[in-house]
């Protein structure tokens, strides 16, 4: 797979340098240059919201650092969790004296490193809470949601937590908002083509020219089935069926994210969005917020995911509150 890069060993550092150069509102923090924060200093008394994860998913994770979203973010090598140092750096940058929420995807390395960093933070008197993104319904059944992977829907939790923190919520309230957003968000993805980790000998997976995989993870982890490609309306209907099967009882309104995994163009996302809106309409569910674009990617992977965040009176205003980061502006 061809890439416009230099030495793969410098991929992440050069990417972060470019991100900060292109968006001067973001700065490096810490000594290992693998944590990003807002260039304005952390407001005293505000709860910090941090995230972290492996590289290769831009705009996730670092791209969501901004007003009303994340205060800081730790970033690892491609598809590897951030190091303990980076997690510590991010937590320190987001410390305004009111505690820090660590909000990230349900992956082993990320969990271990944030946990260790949280232990160090505690020694320094910084209180932390952890909320894990677990929105990928393809990765485990509805009765073991705690096992699920975190994928594109994580950004709804960012938004909810960021808005709650901006509104002056305390650490418990911010964590509760994030957890509620996670609990009310479901995602399923479909993959068409693979990506390759810079420097790797080959692509992360192979898939036939006429095949797609339903439910594949954002690192190429296996999904539910692999079959010949079909008209996208049929695929959307199947995906929406799975998402709606798990809707909460009170589901009346949703926020929708139709997300490109990387190579899938806007044109196809809008064709998908059109069908998603139709299915929701038929199900009697109104759309409160609409996002269509590359929000959580796997480098050049081809495919798309659909996320639904079931809104209630608490979550909807949090998602609608003003926010501003390089890749997402609200209000």
């Amino acid at each position, binding site marked *: 797979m061809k890439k416009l890069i230099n030495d793969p060993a410098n991929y992440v550092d050069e990417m972060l340098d470019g991100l900060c150069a292109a968006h001067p509102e973001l700065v490096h923090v810490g000594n290992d240059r693998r944590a990003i924060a807002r260039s304005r200093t952390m407001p005293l008394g505000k709860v910090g919201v941090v995230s972290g994860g492996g590289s290769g998913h831009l705009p996730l994770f670092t791209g969501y650092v901004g007003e009303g979203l994340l205060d800081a973010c730790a970033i690892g090598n491609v598809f*590897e969790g951030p190091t303990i140092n980076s997690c510590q750096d991010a937590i320190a940058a987001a410390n305004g004296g009111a505690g820090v929420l660590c909000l990230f995807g349900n992956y082993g*390395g990320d969990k*271990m490193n944030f946990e260790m960093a949280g232990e160090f933070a505690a020694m320094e008197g910084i209180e932390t809470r952890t909320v894990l993104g677990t929105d990928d319904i393809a990765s485990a059944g509805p009765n073991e949601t705690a096992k699920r992977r975190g994928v594109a829907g994580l950004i709804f939790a960012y938004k909810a937590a960021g808005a709650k923190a901006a509104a002056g919520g305390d650490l418990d309230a911010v964590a509760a908002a994030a957890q509620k957003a996670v609990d009310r968000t479901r995602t399923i993805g479909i993959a068409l083509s693979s990506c390759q980790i810079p420097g790797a000998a080959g692509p992360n*997976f192979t898939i036939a020219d006429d095949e797609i995989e339903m439910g594949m993870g954002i690192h190429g982890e296996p999904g539910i089935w692999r079959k010949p490609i079909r008209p996208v309306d049929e695929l959307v209907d199947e995906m929406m069926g799975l998402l709606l099967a798990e809707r909460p009882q009170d589901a009346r309104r949703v926020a929708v994210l139709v997300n490109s995994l990387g190579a899938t163009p806007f044109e196809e996302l809008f064709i998908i969005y059109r069908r998603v809106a139709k299915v929701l309409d038929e199900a009697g569910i109104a759309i409160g917020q609409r996002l269509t674009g590359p929000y959580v990617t796997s480098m050049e992977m081809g495919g798309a995911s659909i996320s639904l965040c079931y809104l209630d009176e608490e979550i909807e205003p949090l998602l609608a509150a003003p926010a501003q980061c390089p890749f997402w502006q609200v209000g």
Partner: protein
Amino acid sequence: MAFTAHDLAVALKRANARMETLTDELNAADAKLGDGDTGSMLARLIATFAAVDIEAQPDLGAAFMALAKAGAASTGSSLGTLVITAMMTAGKETAGQAEIGWDRLGPIIGKVRDAAMMRGKAELGAKTIIDGLDALARALDRKSNPEALAKAAVAAMDDVLAEFRDRPCTMGRARMFADRSVGLDDPGMLALAELVRAVTKGAHQAGPPS
């Protein structure tokens, strides 16, 4: 005769050399149900270890801690973090000691296993590297002859891979595909086994490291 920072450095060099071919094998094993990076990550981590100058380190504990520190700055992957945890644990166990008797290897690996279980919130039998560490600790227990240790380690690795191959995995990325993991080696356990083979094979050829 005892185990020193020099022996550790030699083992790391052997492991590092083995990664040249092992990288792709491990990536492929991880790609089956995971994200396909076990090999690349481990290659980078072990190269980082091999580049740390521990040869002359008089304190074995400090040598392990230097490795842990270098490793902790280089990866945050699950297996990487467990390996770093292992180095920290070994560092604590050997702190202030210039050398340890070969008979300490088994118990120290036992401690490493326990620390990794805590860190990874994993249980025995979940088919991860931890089951490999457990088998290794038990095989080395109460042995002090380097050649006997090497032999026992390799046999234990063969056995534990075989024992778990047809069992389901319940930790790590492959946990969602417990059924599909039957018949496949766990990438972390496979990595441990291959590296044990590589390190001890060198030991056989060159005689026990002095």
